[in-house]
């Protein structure tokens, strides 16, 4: 069994990370999951949160908002609509995202509203963790 797998984090604008990782924690919509080599092939959507990558014993953290992750036995690809390195994220950017999400939520109704509410709550939680 290989003890590492290929990890890629890409956003539409650039590739943020590409490394050999031994462990990746992904904030899935239905709960966090940790992918390790030989994980069952899975596709999950993301909720706003942190992706934690362990590679060569060092840990990196990234902020992701929206998108999905594809896990196979040998690789993890996280495709995030917005992604930042945890220390590189600017507070203004995140707050802009939050404001936009709130505006979007206020226009929704029914089940969409619940989804949007959760999205906003996740964002707020993420921002709290940042502070």
């Amino acid at each position, binding site marked *: 069994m290989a003890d590492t797998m290929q990890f*890629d984090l*890409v*956003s*539409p*604008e*650039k*590739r943020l990370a590409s490394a050999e990782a031994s462990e990746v924690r992904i904030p*899935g*919509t*239905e709960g966090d*999951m940790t992918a390790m080599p030989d994980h*069952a*092939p*899975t*596709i*999950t*959507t993301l909720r706003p949160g942190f992706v934690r990558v362990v590679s060569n014993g060092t840990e990196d953290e990234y902020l992701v908002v*929206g*998108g*999905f992750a*594809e896990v*196979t036995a040998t690789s993890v*690809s996280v*495709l995030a*609509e*917005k992604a930042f390195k945890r220390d590189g994220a600017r507070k203004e950017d995140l707050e802009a995202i939050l404001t936009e999400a709130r505006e979007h939520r206020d226009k929704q109704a029914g089940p969409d509203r619940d989804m949007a509410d959760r999205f906003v709550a996740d964002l707020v939680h993420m921002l709290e963790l940042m502070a």
Partner: protein
Amino acid sequence: MPSLKDLKNRIASVKSTRKITKAMQMVAAAKLRRAQEAAEASRPYTERFNAVMAGLSAAASGSDSAPKLLSGTGEDKVHLLVVMTAERGLCGGFNSSIVKLARAKILDLRRKGKTIKILTVGKKGRDQLRRDYGDLLIGHVDLSAVKRLSYPDAQGIAKDILSRFEASEFDVATIFFSRFESVISQIPTETQIIPAKFEDEGDSEATTVYDYEPSEEEILADLLPRGVATQIFSALLENGASEQGARMAAMDNATRNAGDMIEKLSIQYNRSRQAAITNELIEIISGAEAL
């Protein structure tokens, strides 16, 4: 026969034109590099995205509950053409070739009796289409203030298109843009974005059976709107690179033409100057002989 002074002025003016086109060429070259980098940087995302969507949509398109964005509205009456062009001219046939492709599509759809709506991105395309199809234009996206294309720009356009789709304003959406092949070749392209079609490039991926979290349908419903934005974003980036490539080639041509013209004018200038001198000499000599 223009006078010496006229010729001199013309040479000076062509020279300054050459300076301008030369500068524009160099600016375009620098911008092209940046645009190409941006296009390249977005490629990993787009490719992975399309591969996953191809797998998902192949599985879902058979079922009746497939989302409308994938299966269509069941009708094929109203077509939305999204014509993406540049905000500026002076880039050779770049804008016209995109518009030409769109025109051909319009004629074709008209013959089939479809209703057509046009959404333009970029001022030049709007200006050209407004002349003939002003009544079909339903909107325009202005990107002239945008210095560097970013994903939110594409999301904005996608949001506009999606809200029109939800309001049942059209059945089929097609985007027109120019694919960047090389500096000398940009290929005008049309791509249907709604109902979504994803080309599966590597079919080895498709054989993997994935677990889906949440369910396949929910993921699909979440990702399809993002797919529209992704496709628009990559089209915008390709267009950006194409525009700069086309401008670079056009300005290179212009610079060369200006050089040729300066040469021709200089020869003419020198000839007339020599003719004037000879004339004067003859006058002096014949004057001296008369004495």
